[in-house]
């Protein structure tokens, strides 16, 4: 008669407490909360653990599906894992994500040492939102866009915007310059928070008589800024 292997394991664990203790300590617990971009808990999401950074396959371990509190819990053997959280709108557990599904972006590498129970929170986003995480603009810079126009309201090509946080209206070469405009007269400046004097010129370097006549207060991104005064060489 052969004893099934799982019975053998139960017997060992029952009658050899050291083995049972060893088995228990070999497992580690990962817990945390899955939220959306507004910080609200996400119901129906899961955490997937992978034993490599190749996450385009079924997970090696999957957590419980979160309830309204967004909490998840997963118990695994110690090791190094790559973790992502996903919320699928169709409740599927496998296969490619659809455009409305949410996920936490690039996998997070986690070292789960023995007895090292960890708490890690995830934020899930739509695929498009997640892709935009690669935003490389510094948080302390604001994007100021607008047009340089003539008196008839037409965009002026081949001019540029310039800004300075100096209080003087005349500056030789201001700290902040846009590229030359195209046919539309559109410009982009990246400015930090503060008060700037701003103007436009049609030659580089700007003529020494150039003045920055407009004032702009920068606390956030701005669009539709209009510049009319073009500094012309005498």
């Amino acid at each position, binding site marked *: 008669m052969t004893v099934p292997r799982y019975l053998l394991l139960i017997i060992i664990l029952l009658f050899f407490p050291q083995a049972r203790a060893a088995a228990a300590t070999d497992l580690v617990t990962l817990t945390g909360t899955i939220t959306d971009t507004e910080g609200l808990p996400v119901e129906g999401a899961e955490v997937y653990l992978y034993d490599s950074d190749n996450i385009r396959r079924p997970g090696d371990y999957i957590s419980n599906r979160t309830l309204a509190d967004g909490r998840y819990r997963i118990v695994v053997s110690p090791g190094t894992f790559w973790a992502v959280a996903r919320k699928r709108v169709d409740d599927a557990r496998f296969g490619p994500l659809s455009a409305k599904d949410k996920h936490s972006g690039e996998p997070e590498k986690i070292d789960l040492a023995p007895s090292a129970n960890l708490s890690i929170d995830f934020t899930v986003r739509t695929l498009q939102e997640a*892709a*935009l995480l*690669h935003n*490389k603009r*510094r948080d302390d810079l604001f994007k100021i866009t607008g047009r340089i126009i003539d008196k008839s309201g037409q965009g002026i090509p081949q001019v540029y915007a310039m800004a300075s946080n100096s209080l003087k209206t005349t500056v030789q070469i201001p700290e902040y*310059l846009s590229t*030359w405009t195209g046919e539309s007269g559109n410009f982009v400046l990246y400015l930090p928070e503060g008060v700037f004097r701003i103007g436009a010129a049609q030659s580089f370097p700007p003529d020494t008589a150039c003045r920055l006549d407009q004032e702009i207060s920068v606390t956030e991104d701005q669009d539709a800024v209009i510049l009319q005064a073009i500094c012309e060489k005498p």
Partner: protein
Amino acid sequence: MIFLRFLSRCRFRHLPGAAAVLALLLFTPYTLRAAVLTEDTVWSGSVELSEDLLVPKGITLTIAAGTVITVLPTESTKTDPEFLSPLNEIMVRGHLEAEGGTGNPVIFRVKKGMESGSEWAGIIIDDGNAWLHETEISDAEAALTVLQGWAKVKRSKITGNRYGLLVQGADSGLKVEKSRIADNEYGILSLNNAILIREESVIEKNTYHDVEIRNTLSMPDETREQSLVETPQNITRTYGSESLVGDTIWQGRIVINGVVRLPVTGRLIILPGTVVEFTRWDTNGDSIGESGLLLQGVLVAKGTAGAPIIFRSAEKDRQRGDWDAINILGSDGTQNLIEYCRIEDAYRGLHFHFANVAINHVSLHNNYRGIQFQESLVSITNSLLRDNRSGIQARDSEVVLTDTQFYDHHTGANFFRLNLLATGNRFYSNQGSGIRIREGRAVMTGNTIDTNRAGLRISDALYGIFSNNIINGNSETGLAIRSSDNIEVSGNILQFNGSNGLSIQDSGGLIENNIISDNRERGIGIDTFNGTISGNTVVNNGLFAMDIDGPKPVNAPGNWWGASDIAAVISDAADDPATGRAIYEPALSGPPVFPWKIQKIRTHVAWHGAIRVDGKVDVLRDADLTIAPGTAITLTAADSGLLVTGALHALGTADRKITFSLAPDQGSPPAPEDDEPRWDEVSFERARDSVLRYVDFHYASWAVHSHFTRLRVENCRFFDNYGGIRFRSGPISVTSTLFSRNIYAMRSLFGKGDISGNTFQDNEINIFIRSGGSGVIIRGNNFLTTSRYAVRLGDFNREEVDARENWWDGKNPQEMIFDENQEPGVGRVLFTPALSAPAPSLSGERQ
């Protein structure tokens, strides 16, 4: 590297002097990592190649008989510009000589146990040459690729590769003699007018093609950059390796012999017209110069159109790689500006990490790599990257790419994990891919990707939108999508590609409202696809409209397949039970309307099915627009039409005419005398030779308007237009054509043309010669009912007009003519002899 040089020097070339050590080494494989040979080298025994190897110009690598080169397969996001493939490669810009012997060949292969397909790039000849004798190559992407230069392969075996031998470009040649090329996916692939000589070779049992020769569309020249005339300048200042302090302004001619650094607090301002030249300062002998700029502060290089800033080699014989780069590191605050600049002869023209950079109107030429960056915020507009080994490589960055051209590279653009917005760019004539995108988020609209070896390749992306692009005339697949999800491919043109228009492997998304036609093999080739293919026009492809290779079904209802027997143009489970089923019912019974949103046609494009034009479409100088039989073009009112400076070939047939008409939602069709809105015109402006055959024109302002163009109009019909054809110069030939119910059928101003065998009926004026009428010959036409004049001369015409041998509907021709008989001085119409019966062409065809 030093160790490698020692190995290659002492182990092989000076064998007697190192006998004790070498006796051991000879029996032990040694491993080469990324290496540049700096002197002539001989290999024998066993060589293990773990990374790339470069044989530079002037260096010879000789491989002795019996040598086994084992390659360790890797795929990386390599950044070294002198190499071309992400796989391990042997790059030969000098000379390679493999001297195998009978029964003692030179062998290139992947390490045992690691061979599972195309595991290394192979040997690439790039402006070098190779002689492979008794050589065996396997497991490569392409065993031997000749991009520029010559190779001779004799008594060799090329087996088990993706491509056996690949030769590309008119500057490349390959001779294959007494060799066996077998069991590869492609045996020999010859592209773009390369020279291929085969003698006594066995080329068989290759999966797709044994020998495939593809000469793609000719490369346009006229859009290429014009050289700038330069005024010599004296040297303003020479720099060695030193640091700049505070704001530094450069103008005039600057020479740099070393590395000029700009600290975080500094700003380097370069004025228009400045020339910055870098000496070839090569301290490590790797043929790459090290002079350059290392900027951590802010760069303002603001040239102008008339006075660009030039960065280039200071050497008389300027070579690619003479200097290092404009490096911008950690400068992500104030935006760095690089405008109206020319950057040439560098290793990397522009190179940034963690930077905020705007590149506007910049030309990058003859660099190993034009631009390379990572972790940066970058705007590239109105720029031109040409003839660098690779155009641009970027990763982990946010990029806006607009109206920029990439041509004559190996790879035009290689993007990894970008947030990319690309609009109005052109990627063409690149030897490898036009553009590669891995991971990240890409939105590409209105780009042209043409005449590359492969067009656009997308892999491992989770999200992307690719709409209204033209992906035509690439030697291999136009658009290849692999291991990607949520990819929208809509409104694109995928035509004239050498293998498939669209290839999909293990991907999902939406393939909608595209025109996929005239591809040499398949319109759509699918391994595994999870999504929907609908609303597409998939016609006139060589093998199949759609070919499913994988086991899963493909959802493709609601497409126009251009065939009554759809099953015959789709290869699926019905043909091979091991493959998935194509769910193509219900299929469209006619072509869906394709809204044309691409304003500029820059390459060879074909219109099929139903095209709706809203606005003016420019067929540019180097472009050809072919309109297939049966195509219906509808145009919105007012400004819609075509402006052709390239060539237009509208080739209808008697039973499948092409039509140009007002879109149905533009109100009721106008009568000729009405002022109701009409579509504008098909305009030819110094265009290349063009043809309109079996085309019907309805409800135009002027259907055809031609200036200085050799134009043939044959078997066409013009109905209910304000005007049919007006032309200046020519020559124009209008034959076997019907003009009916137009105010003006034709109008000429200093025209040169032959108007013969046509029928004019119910027009107000048939032919109006405004001035310079002696260049027009009017013969064999039928002038039927006319409300005013059959031929009218304008007030400024002083010349005689030859209108003999026409049929005047049995009336007195003079009553149908306005000439000097009505107004002295306007010239005379010569109408005798007149025909005594209707001309045969359209006689009796009254509408």
